[in-house]
């Protein structure tokens, strides 16, 4: 049985690591698609802030929503919480305080990745350096996940990490889908023809380009892409997949019945979703509800494991 405090830190370590990887991929994909769009047609950098719900925090430190400012805010600013650099620092702090339950190489890799972000992020704002840096960062994070999956005991610490990873991933995927749906709505209202490139970018930001091609085909359209990212049962970043994993992990961790039920309901609701039957407004509402449920699950984890209560007994 592990310490509640340690379980909580492992959970957050995994959340932050996943957040860094997903945010880096989002920035990279967006920076990439911008290059392909005709000048004047690009949606602007505020889209990234909206996706990450960071407008308010951004405007507390910066005035103009320029590319440079947004990149500084999201990549290198060490004082705001939303930057890759801060998330990496939080991830490292959590590993530093849980080193005793992890193989030592996990700490070494996370520490190296943190040093990379401390040393390189300020130099990686320009378009030229940004792509190289983000690719390197994403690669390192994948390496960390690979190491964790191939060396950590199949036991509680691993499950708490997976729990954090999956809930964070579900959250990020939802945000990205939401950004796509919003763009779709705006374009419909303004009667702008759809740009397939944007849907390619959306897939790219969830690392789903080749999976989509194999499963659906090379043609990109709004409904197929959104459907794939929401509902593909075997794409490891889809919401059906993420919520299904959460359901499994919660059972492995022998969650109390209430929490177990909540996880099961979230997963089956996601499986039942059929976007061909609902309109965009309903989809928006569905996503909002889903975000709320993720928050409830997170609170349920605290109740079940992380906030210690005397009345529980060891099994």
């Amino acid at each position: 049985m592990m310490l509640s405090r340690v379980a909580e830190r492992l959970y957050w370590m995994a959340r932050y690591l996943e957040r860094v990887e997903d945010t880096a991929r989002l920035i990279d994909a967006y920076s990439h698609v911008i290059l392909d769009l005709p000048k004047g047609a690009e949606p602007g950098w505020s889209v990234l802030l909206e996706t990450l719900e960071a407008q308010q925090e951004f405007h507390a430190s910066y005035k103009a929503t320029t590319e440079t400012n947004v990149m500084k805010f999201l990549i290198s600013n060490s004082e705001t919480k939303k930057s890759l650099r801060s998330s990496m620092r939080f991830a490292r702090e959590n590993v530093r305080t849980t080193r005793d339950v992890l193989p030592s190489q996990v700490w070494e890799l996370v520490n190296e990745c943190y040093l990379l972000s401390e040393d390189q992020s300020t130099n990686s704002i320009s378009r030229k350096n940004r792509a190289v840096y983000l690719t390197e960062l994403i690669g390192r994070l994948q390496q960390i996940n690979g190491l964790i999956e191939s060396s950590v005991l199949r036991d509680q610490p691993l499950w708490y990490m997976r729990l954090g990873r999956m809930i964070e991933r579900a959250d990020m995927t939802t945000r990205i889908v939401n950004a796509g749906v919003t763009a779709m709505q705006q374009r419909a209202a303004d009667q702008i023809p759809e740009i397939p490139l944007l849907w390619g970018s959306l897939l790219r930001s969830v690392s789903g380009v080749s999976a989509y091609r194999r499963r659906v085909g090379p043609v990109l359209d709004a409904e197929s892409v959104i459907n794939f990212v929401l509902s593909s049962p075997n794409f490891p970043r889809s919401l059906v997949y993420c919520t299904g994993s959460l359901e499994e992990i919660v059972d492995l961790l022998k969650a109390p019945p209430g929490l177990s039920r909540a996880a099961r309901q979230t997963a089956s609701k996601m499986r039942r979703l059929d976007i061909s039957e609902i309109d965009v407004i309903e989809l928006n509402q569905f996503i909002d509800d889903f975000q709320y449920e993720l928050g409830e699950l997170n609170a349920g984890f605290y109740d079940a494991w992380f906030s210690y209560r005397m009345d529980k007994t060891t099994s």
Partner: protein
Amino acid sequence: MSVTKSIWANYETVAQTTPPSASYDELINENGRPRAAARRVYRQIGKFSADELQERHSAAELCIREMGISFTVYSDGENIDRSWPYDLIPRIIRAKDWKKMNSGLIQRSRALNAFIDDVYNKQKILADEVLPAELVLESPNYLAQCTGISPAHGVWAHVCGSDLVRDGRGKFFVLEDNLRVPSGVSYMIENREVSKRVLPELFLNEVVQSVGDYPAQLYATLASLSPRSRKRPCIVVLTPGIYNSAYFEHAFLAQEMGAELVEGSDLFVDDRDTVYMKTVGGPKQVDVIYRRIDDTFMDPEAFRDDSTLGVSGLLRAWRGGKVAIANAPGSGVADDKVVYAFVPEMIRYYLNEEPLVSNVPTYLCMLEKDRDYVLEHIAELVVKPANESGGYGIMVGPHSDSATHRRYQKLIEANPRNYIAQPTLSLSTAPTYCDGEIAPRHLDLRPFILQGKESWVTPGGLTRVALKEGSLIVNSSQGGGSKDTWIVG
């Protein structure tokens, strides 16, 4: 020999020009030639060019940064995580010389433990006036709450870190015994790790005693204290938290032992005096606590009620025999520079043996005769507060001005019990890589002695080295470095 200047050229000159009365160099003899045990390493390092040596030095720094080997210093109101300072050139000690130290250190640890057990129980040594009773009973490290307890195997100080120095002829002396929460052992292990990664060729044809066994030995020592007989007792490492200077070590030892690293708030004591940790599945009973927090912070109920680091009721649980604590509360009574002076007497008194390792001659300012001598010869002596660690409050007479001498004379007169003095030893030196060249630097050695059901001593220990020329202050908190320490042959 090649035509280009050897990396050792500078060192040979230094060795030949220093007067024979000066420090003993551990690797190089007075003729500038390597001592027998160091010959192969000397030759191997001699093959490096200055650039190559610099490259290895940088590689070591990078390796330490990436492995995250750090220590925390508190400065300007901030906690800064610093990379561990490591010197490339190993310190080499002959196995034959070390064997004697090994027995001497075990002997010392046995006597110290017999002493602690005695002063908290029958107090025979005080009744027999081997040392003045008030010296022990009035010491701030004597904890009345610990009287009448006899922990498992009669052992209180399960982990002891004794600081050793060598004099001008290379003879070892014990400078002090750290019995509270001695630290440094993880750095001893990591230094070896770094050496193997950065200087693998030095290990060719060498038989160096391994230091990696420490965590397993520590585990066995702690397990032998468990009040419940279980195959795998529940052992925890109690840390004050991430801001403690030795947090790295706490995490390291917990990880290496497969024990849980806990903070005070992770534990609680119930009304039947049993200690539990708070796990995701509820309370789990704890058998042995390896505590890395000071006595008086351990339990706000028994000691400082303002401590937020400890666990309320811990002392009750320990007194009731429900949990073992290493080192036991109150062990610090023998970790006092005045009590230190009596260790040779303790060895004779409790073990009926002659000490195998010597003490440094020590003047006790509480004794009138000694005090007069110290006040008169203050410029030649090293004066130390009886109850400080980390090198704080030490005055090195020959390195201080007369104003400092006068200040210490006043301090001693005001509170003689609190000061001791020792002759200024010419601490031994070893070749150290400093600013692109190899130069002699003073060092000490901290071996770790484990005492549970069995005793065990680390082969070698943590070598600390003063990086400033001529300096005798080796503490890492004050700019000291460290070396990998080899017992060979």
